[in-house]
């Protein structure tokens, strides 16, 4: 049967051979060039801006007098500005670019009218600039993950509508017969996001729902932004790049489908776990806890699938920058998700809720998983659209080690600090049992602040390390674009020359 198909393929001139395939993807890549460069360029700028905001907020946490006289630089505004710059600036721009590029390639469809896409990207970035400027100027809404003032929203919606429409068109015009799992994730994310965003904007800002229903909407939105948008795009990218770089198919399509559908069903209930113990109906909290725990299924299924794909190819990690970042992201996804399930358990939440532990968890997810995955994707995409290699493998190496070590230090440090803070703050009996305090009565509040201080300082050191990585990345990125004007062809970017492993990087 298989040989018959091969025979048919050899007779049919329209059937793709390797050469035709390659020429086709080259053409598709070329069509995504300008929108991708624009989106990724904006993403890198926001990454740097967000990093500066992050450092300022982090320093202020242990040295409150630092820049203390400027209202617009006060901690509350810096923190919100940091969150929005890295989420809506860096992460969304990067995910647009990656989602697009993947969609075009997987649908085998040339991107049409890419100029309009650039207009959409410009709208998005103007919207985010307006929003963050608004936060700094004092127009923050104080809704977590939705701090940008209402006047930034129409631009964001418009931009999103264009982007979403383009992706769907690209998909519809595609020649590909079957739908790969990355496309499921991307299409689903593109569909889910506007629903989440519009419900949140309407029920919290435009016509506020009464009382704590707002809080439910807030966390339904915020956690799903992570779970259904960023996780979907991140997993979509991993599902594409992992097999692509290794040059072998994904271990199991069945597991991929199971992972996707169990994520789609369970993830969107988990947001309520941010309100455990709060003034919202207890049954919803319980539903959130159950869903968080059920998330173990998609997480394990996905982890097994990725691991089995990697099995026997771990050597390739030495060579491929993309693979190194992607694998780091995939492992972080598994760990942070399992941590998330644990955090939803009432007795664990009692300790860690309201502490720096949650901040560590957020960075594990949004940075160690999502951002690292985006870095890996960018390292793969840029050479394909510019038709030249990265200027410096050393800078990539620096980028990887600084961010990988930095975020690991960050997460470990704040998790420990958060647990200590939480024990002292919330469960004095337990804190006493662990020898953190003398009696079993709550210690004075300021003691919980002082106990966390050393960890907050170490967080700043971790932040500096991450900043070094970002600067290396930005230099390489700008250098590459500037150089692309002059140079045409260079050799493959690898940390070292592969030996027996076949790295199908092209």
């Amino acid at each position, binding site marked *: 049967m298989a040989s018959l198909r091969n025979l048919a393929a050899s007779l049919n001139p329209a059937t793709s051979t390797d050469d035709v395939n390659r020429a086709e993807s080259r053409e598709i890549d070329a069509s995504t060039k300008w929108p991708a460069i624009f989106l990724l360029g904006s993403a890198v700028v926001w990454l740097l801006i967000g990093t500066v905001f992050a450092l300022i907020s982090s320093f202020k946490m242990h040295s409150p007098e630092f820049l203390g*006289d400027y209202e617009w630089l006060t901690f509350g505004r810096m923190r919100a500005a940091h969150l929005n710059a890295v989420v809506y600036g860096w992460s969304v721009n990067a995910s647009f670019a990656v989602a697009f590029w993947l969609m075009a390639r997987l649908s085998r469809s040339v991107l049409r009218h890419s100029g309009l896409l650039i207009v959409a990207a410009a709208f998005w970035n103007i919207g985010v600039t307006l929003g963050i400027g608004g936060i700094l100027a*004092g127009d923050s809404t104080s809704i977590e993950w939705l701090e940008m003032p209402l006047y930034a929203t129409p631009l964001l919606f418009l931009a999103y509508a264009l982007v979403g429409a383009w992706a769907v068109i690209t998909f519809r015009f595609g020649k590909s017969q079957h739908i790969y799992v990355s496309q499921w994730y991307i299409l689903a994310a593109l*569909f889910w996001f506007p629903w989440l965003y519009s419900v949140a904007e309407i029920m919290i800002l435009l016509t506020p729902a009464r009382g704590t229903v707002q809080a439910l909407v807030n966390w339904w939105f915020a956690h799903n932004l992570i779970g259904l948008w960023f996780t979907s795009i991140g997993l979509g990218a991993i599902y594409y790049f992992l097999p692509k770089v290794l040059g072998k198919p994904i271990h199991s399509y069945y597991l991929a489908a199971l992972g996707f559908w169990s994520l789609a069903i369970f993830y969107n209930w988990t947001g309520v776990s941010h309100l455990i113990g709060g003034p919202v109906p207890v049954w919803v909290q319980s539903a959130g806890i159950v869903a968080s725990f059920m998330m173990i299924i998609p997480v394990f299924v996905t982890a097994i699938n990725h691991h089995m794909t990697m099995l026997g190819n771990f050597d390739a990690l030495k060579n491929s920058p993309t693979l190194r970042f992607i694998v780091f992201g995939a492992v972080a996804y598994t760990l942070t998700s399992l941590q998330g399930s644990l955090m939803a358990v009432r007795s664990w939440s009692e300790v860690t809720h309201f502490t720096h532990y949650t901040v560590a968890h957020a960075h594990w997810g949004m940075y160690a998983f999502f951002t690292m995955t985006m870095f890996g994707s960018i390292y793969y995409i840029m050479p394909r659209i510019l038709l030249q290699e990265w200027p410096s493998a050393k800078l990539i190496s620096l980028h990887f080690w600084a961010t990988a070590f930095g975020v690991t230090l960050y997460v470990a440090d704040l998790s420990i600090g958060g647990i200590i803070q939480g024990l002292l703050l919330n469960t004095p009996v337990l804190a006493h049992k662990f020898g953190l305090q003398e009696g079993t009565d709550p210690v004075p509040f300021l003691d919980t602040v002082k106990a966390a201080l050393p960890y907050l300082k170490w967080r700043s050191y971790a932040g500096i390390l991450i900043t070094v990585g970002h600067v290396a990345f930005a230099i390489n990125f700008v250098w590459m674009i500037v150089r692309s004007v002059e140079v045409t062809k260079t050799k493959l970017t690898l940390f070292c020359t592969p030996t027996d492993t076949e790295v199908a990087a092209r």
Partner: protein
Amino acid sequence: MNRAPLIFLSIFFALALSWTGIVLVNQISYGSLQPVYDENDGKAYPLQTPGLAARGKLVYQDLGCISCHSQQVRRLGYGSDIARGWGERQSVAHDYIREDRVLLGTMRTGPDLRNIGARQADHTWHYLHLYDPQITSAGSNMPPHRFLFETRKVIGQPSPKAIQDKLPEKYRPKAGYEIVPTERGESLVEYLLSLKDTYAYPETKNVYVEPAPEAGKEGEKK
């Protein structure tokens, strides 16, 4: 075979489920809670936030106080909110129904503020604390909010709102100058003082029974 419509439908229903369960059902079940009219007091609870305090809430929002301060008290036996004196009872949905913007918060780098008006009712304390938290709470990592005050030359009568005499030596301005809270600073303090959930709604009565000593800490039971 084109499975796109099927995939799309499933994607739709996946989110529709939680949207119904978390958002819609709760909006229907308690999204139109009404204030409770107390015949003895002749007032409807929760009370409306007075005008200046309502403006102060906007200051609270734009400064991002929510990054470090929650506004919710958890029940007795879960966390140590009540043992810390952050409230006499747990917060209930009724407490928030007059608020256009609900600021529950998820972080306690600083203490919970849901009842700060009840436990710290002194204006001056708040002004000193905002001017520099080290004055009232040495070792705190809260940033100073000196930008909510202005130092100005005394012209004619000194302002009754001036706080410089209450500040420690090193913060005092030159003679002939005074430090007064700006309008934003004043309204923020009014807002903080307005934060108190002391009214006992029907649903908050008889729910906090001291846990029996031999039962130890109550874990999962609600």
